[in-house]
C-alpha cells in the first residue's frame, strides 16, 4: 500500500495531522441580494496548486478576492496560517495576486514593476536588486528589464506579472485567469512553465479559471464551483473518473449521461433499466441506491469500444447505427444511435490509416464496455 510505494505521493489533504494553510469556515458573500459565495467550507494546504474551476459568475473570483482582501466576507471566517485575516488590509497580507489584466504599471519598466512590492517591504535596498535579478532569471526576462510593459509581447507581460507577484515570496499566490489572454499554443507552454515555477519556489498557488483543461493540467486539486457552492473538490483524476454529480461530469470533458431506474443486484453492482425492451446497463455503484431509484449513468466516450461484433469480455453490449463520425486526427468520435433512440458518443484511437478505417456512416456496430467503465450518479 502507501508504505510499499517508495515515492511519497503529495497528498496532504488525506493526512488528518496536516494543518491547512487556508481555511474557509462558513464563508458567505452577498452583493445586495445576490449571493456570490454561499456558506462555503474549504481547506487548502501548503505547497498545493489549487484550482477553482467554474463558469463565470459562479463565485470563484469573489472567493479569490476575499483571500486577497479586496472583498470582505458577509459571514464566516477565513484563516490563513491560523490567523483570522478579516482585520488585515490587502497591503498587509502575506498574499499576492496576479491579475487577469496583469495590471502592469505602464509608467514603470519591467525592473521597476518587479521591484515595486519589494520597495514597500522592509527589505534592504541592496538586497532588492538581487531579488529582482533572481526573479528575472526565473521567468527568463533578463534582457527585457529596462523595457516598459507596452514594449514587450503578451507572453512576456504575463511573465512579468508572475515575477512581480512572486518577488515578495508570498505565503500564497493567487492567479486570476493567468493565461486567459494568451493564444492556445502559448497557453499550453505557459501551463508547464507555471507548474515548474510553482515547484521551484514551493509557493502555494490558487488559480481561478473557467478552462477545465487548464485546471486539470496544472492543479494538484480542483474545486468545481457552481452558484457560490463547491460541488466537488478532488484531484484531477478523481474529478474526471469519479465525478460526484451530473454537473461535474458534464462540466469536465465529454460524457454520455443515461437516465434510468436502479435495481441493485448485490455485491456492489446495479442494473439500470434505461429503456423499454432494452437490456439494462450493468454497473458498479459508488454510493448506496435503492431499488427503483432514479439514477444517472455517466460514461466517457473513450471508455466505450466500438466494434463489428459484441466484445464478449465486456459486461455491456449494445447494438446501434453510426450516425456521425468526427475525425480529429489522433482519434475519431462516433455518434451511435441505439435501437431505443439514444445517442451515444464513443471514441476510438486511429491506430490505422484512414483508408483502412473499419466503419462508416449507417454501419451497424456494437458498443461494449465493462461494468466498471462508468459511474452511477444520483444527482
Amino acid at each position, binding site marked *: 500500500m502507501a508504505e510499499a510505494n517508495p515515492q511519497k505521493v503529495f497528498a496532504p489533504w488525506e493526512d488528518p495531522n496536516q494543518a491547512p494553510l487556508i481555511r474557509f469556515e462558513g464563508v458567505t458573500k452577498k452583493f445586495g441580494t445576490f449571493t456570490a459565495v454561499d456558506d462555503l467550507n474549504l481547506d487548502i494546504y501548503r505547497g498545493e496548486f489549487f484550482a477553482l474551476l467554474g463558469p463565470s459568475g459562479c463565485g470563484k473570483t469573489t472567493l479569490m478576492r476575499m483571500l486577497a482582501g479586496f472583498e470582505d466576507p458577509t459571514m464566516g471566517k477565513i484563516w490563513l496560517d491560523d490567523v483570522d485575516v478579516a482585520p488585515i488590509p490587502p497591503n498587509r497580507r502575506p498574499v*499576492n495576486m496576479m491579475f487577469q489584466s496583469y*495590471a502592469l504599471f505602464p*509608467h514603470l519598466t519591467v525592473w521597476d514593476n518587479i521591484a515595486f512590492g519589494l520597495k514597500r517591504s522592509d527589505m534592504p535596498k541592496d538586497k532588492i536588486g538581487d531579488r529582482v535579478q533572481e526573479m528575472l532569471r526565473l521567468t527568463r526576462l533578463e534582457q527585457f528589464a529596462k523595457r516598459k510593459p*507596452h514594449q514587450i509581447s503578451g507572453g512576456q507581460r504575463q511573465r512579468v506579472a508572475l515575477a*512581480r507577484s512572486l518577488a515578495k515570496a508570498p505565503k500564497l499566490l493567487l492567479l486570476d485567469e493567468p493565461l486567459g489572454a494568451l493564444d492556445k499554443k502559448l497557453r499550453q507552454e505557459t501551463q508547464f512553465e507555471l507548474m515548474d515555477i510553482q515547484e521551484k519556489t514551493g509557493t502555494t498557488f490558487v488559480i481561478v479559471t473557467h478552462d477545465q483543461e487548464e485546471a486539470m493540467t496544472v492543479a494538484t486539486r480542483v474545486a468545481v464551483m457552481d452558484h457560490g457552492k463547491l460541488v466537488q473538490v478532488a484531484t484531477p483524476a478523481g474529478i474526471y473518473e469519479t465525478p460526484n454529480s451530473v454537473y461535474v461530469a458534464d462540466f469536465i470533458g465529454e460524457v454520455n449521461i443515461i437516465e434510468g431506474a436502479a435495481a441493485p443486484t448485490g455485491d456492489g453492482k446495479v442494473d439500470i433499466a434505461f429503456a423499454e425492451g432494452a437490456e439494462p446497463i450493468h454497473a458498479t455503484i459508488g454510493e448506496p441506491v435503492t431499488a427503483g431509484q432514479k439514477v444517472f449513468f455517466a460514461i466517457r466516450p473513450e471508455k466505450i469500444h466500438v466494434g463489428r461484433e459484441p466484445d464478449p469480455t465486456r459486461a455491456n453490449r449494445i447494438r446501434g447505427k453510426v450516425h456521425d463520425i468526427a475525425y480529429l486526427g489522433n482519434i475519431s468520435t462516433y455518434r451511435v444511435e441505439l435501437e431505443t433512440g439514444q445517442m451515444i458518443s464513443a471514441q476510438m484511437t486511429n491506430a490505422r490509416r484512414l483508408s483502412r478505417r473499419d466503419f462508416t456512416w449507417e454501419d451497424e456496430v456494437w458498443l461494449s464496455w465493462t461494468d466498471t467503465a462508468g459511474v452511477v450518479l444520483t444527482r
Partner: protein
Amino acid sequence: MNRSMSWFNVTSLTLGFAFLYLPMMILIFYSFNASKLVTVWAGFSTKWYGELLHNKQFLDAAWVTLRVGVMSSTAATILGTMAAYVMVRGGRFFGRTLFSGMIYAPLVMPEVITGLSLLLLFIAIGLDRGIFTIVLAHTTFSMCYVSVVVSSRLMTFDRSLEEAALDLGCSPFDAFKSVTLPIITPAVISGWLLAFTLSLDDLVIASFASGPSSTTLPIKIFSAVRLGVSPEINALSTIMIGIVATGVITTSLISKNAIRRQRQEELEGTKL
C-alpha cells in the same frame, strides 16, 4: 477610407475654415496698419505694438491676469482632481448626488449668474473685492472643467492597477501617489491648461468679482472695444492669438511624436 473628396466636401471645408479663420487673419493683418483708422490701409508699421508696450494700464492688467490665471488654475487643478477622484473612486457617501450636481451645474450655468451670485456672496461675507476674489471665482468654475477632464481619464483607467499596488504593499495613499497620479498626469496637465485658458479668457465673472484696483486684461479689452475698433487692441489680440497658436501647435506636435514613438516601440516589442 482613402477616397478622393467630392467638390462639395472640398468646398464646404474651404468655406468653413475660411469663415473660422478669416476674421482673425484680418485682425492680425490690420494690426500692422500704420493708420489709426482701422479700415484704411496706410502701409506696414509695428508702431501699435510699440505703443502697447508703453501702455502701463494694459501691462498692469496683463500682469494681474497672468497671476490670477496661474493661481486659480493651480488651485482648480488640485481641487478638480480631488473631486474627480471622489466621483469615480469615492464609492457611496452622503450627498453624492448633490456633489455631482455641483460639479456639472457650473458647466452649463450662464456666466452672468455665476458672477452675480459670487459677487453677492463676497458682499454678504464682507470680503473686499480684488485679485483674491477673482482667484476664488475662477477656481470654482474651472475646477469643474478640470474634474470632468480628469474623471474621464480615471474612468478608462484599469482599476486592477490600483488593486495591484495595494496587493504589493502600498497604503491607499501610497497607491494613489505612485500609481494613479503618474498615469493620470497627462489629463491633469491638460486640465491645468484648460483652467488657465478659461481664466485668461473670462470677462463676465471677473467683472463681477473684481474690485477697482484689480482690472484683468479681458475687462480692459472689453471697455476699450466697446468704443469701437482700435489698432492697439488689434496688436494685443495678435500677440494673444500668436501665443495660443504656438502653444497648441507645439503640444499637438509633441503628442503626435510621442504617439508615433510609442507605436514604434510596441511594434518592436511584438517582434521579439
